[in-house]
């Protein structure tokens, strides 16, 4: 609570701020930099949310299903399918299992081999789709049993597909966080540079204030308030523009590629609204640090 009160006191110093002359170019540059950084930050946030959604979708869609592929000599195929279904029916952790029809298999191969596929003329294995129960099944135990009952059956529990996809999504998420951290660090650096320049340009003002009896907190307040408000205003404009840009991005639906699905959904739209406040905090801390460092050289 005392930290909040301190922050409020630092930002309410209108009298202190008036003591420092306004510098148009520094003000405009700070606002522009904050706006640009907020714009990028909102996009990084959109990337974060999108990767999270994609990772969840991939994980949930592939996690609850498995496939048994049956490659058997002609004449034994139907018998092995029946044996596999019988094994699956008795396996705990499997809620349902069904053999895919020729039409369904043709539909799966259509993107690669085209429509009107003569499936009967090709050595295409039969597929059995498994839907897992909530606890999942023992994949290794099932493999052993399938090997005994249907030698041509191979269980694919999607682990080898799922793992790299989830890892890729996690990496993208990490990159999103890294981008946000880099943006915050860049903004801190820019505000520090601008504040240092303003402090150097107003060295004489600071001396006069100190000689008139101003405490360090008063002088620091004169600069922090100004830079905090500039960063907040700039970041607010940047964030609003970025939100508008994200909102008008085309979204062809779930079937579309990952990047065309970049954006916010539902409550996620509140997240970018925190960006201007985060920018203000970064600017406040950067300016405070620069001002405190500058004051050390003035008695």
């Amino acid at each position, binding site marked *: 609570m005392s930290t909040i009160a301190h922050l409020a006191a630092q930002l309410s110093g209108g*009298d202190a701020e*008036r*003591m420092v002359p306004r510098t148009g170019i520094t003000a405009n540059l700070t606002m522009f930099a904050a706006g640009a950084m907020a714009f990028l930050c909102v996009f990084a946030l959109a990337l974060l949310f999108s990767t999270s959604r994609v990772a969840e979708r991939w994980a949930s869609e592939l996690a609850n299903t498995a496939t048994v592929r049956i490659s058997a000599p002609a004449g034994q195929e139907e018998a092995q399918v029946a044996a596999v279904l019988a094994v699956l029916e008795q396996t705990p952790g499997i809620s349902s299992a069904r053999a895919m029809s020729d039409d369904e298999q043709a539909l799966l191969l259509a993107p690669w081999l085209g429509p009107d596929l003569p499936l009967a003329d090709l050595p295409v294995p039969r597929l059995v789709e498994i839907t897992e129960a909530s606890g999942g099944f023992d994949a290794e135990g099932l493999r052993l049993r399938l090997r005994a009952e249907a030698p041509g059956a191979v269980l694919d529990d999607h682990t080898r597909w799922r793992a790299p996809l989830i890892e890729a999504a996690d990496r993208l998420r990490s990159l999103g966080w890294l981008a946000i951290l880099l943006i915050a660090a860049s903004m801190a650096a820019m505000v520090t540079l601008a504040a240092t320049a303003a402090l150097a340009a107003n060295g004489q*003002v600071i*001396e*006069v*204030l100190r000689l*008139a009896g101003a405490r360090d907190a008063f002088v620091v307040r004169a600069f922090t308030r100004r830079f905090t408000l500039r960063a907040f205003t700039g970041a607010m404009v940047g964030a609003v523009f970025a939100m508008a840009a994200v909102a008008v991005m085309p979204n062809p639906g779930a079937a579309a590629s990952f990047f065309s699905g970049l954006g916010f959904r539902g409550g996620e739209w509140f997240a970018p609204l925190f960006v201007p406040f985060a920018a203000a905090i970064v600017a406040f801390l950067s300016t405070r640090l620069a001002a405190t460092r500058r004051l050390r050289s003035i*008695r």
Partner: protein
Amino acid sequence: MNPRQRWGKQAETKRGSRVIELSNVSYSYGDRRLFSEISLALPAGSFHFLTGPSGSGKTTLLKLLYLELRPQAGQIALFGQDAAGLSRDQVALARQRIGIVHQDCRFLDHLSVADNIALPLTVAGRNVAAERGNMNELMSWVGLGAQATSTPPQLSGGERQRAALARAVILSPDVVLADEPTGNVDWEMSTRLLSLLVELNRMGKTVLIATHDLHLIRQAKAQVSARVLRIREGKLQLAGSDL
């Protein structure tokens, strides 16, 4: 309440007690030694002149007194406290008890004259609007009633010096230190500024004026009991009848 009552109040030091004391203070600019082990005590309510040739160190001595400079050796005590042990906030509070008239006035040119005079009130966290009446009275007292909304660059030399004096006394400090307060003004204005400083001393303020204007010193000695200190070859001496 007239100005005499208003700016003469809040005296926190007893007349005769030492408000500022220098003990064996030395100061050098690079290889050039300006002071060597000088000592000085300013009793509350006293009136001192500090004189010496240009470059002798009058301004430097004043800067040591209001702690803008640190001595390389020796000790400075403000209001009975060793300045070396003061935190930055305590230095700021001590300065609120010292009114300073700088040689170059040191105004904030983007603010009005009234805002510059009110600067010590503002930095001390006082409600300037509530003290507007006192402000106007003080500005009239120094003859700047009509210049309240002007900016410092619009003032003449004499007006700047009077505005600096008004700023120095707005917080009713215990001590007023003035560095060449009549340096840029004509005889008539310097007489007027001296009268203001003498009046402040009569209100109980400790006054120290650094000047090389011997005429001003003679004029003051006719009105008030003033001691004259002279810096010579890095030492501080009490000047005698040779002035």
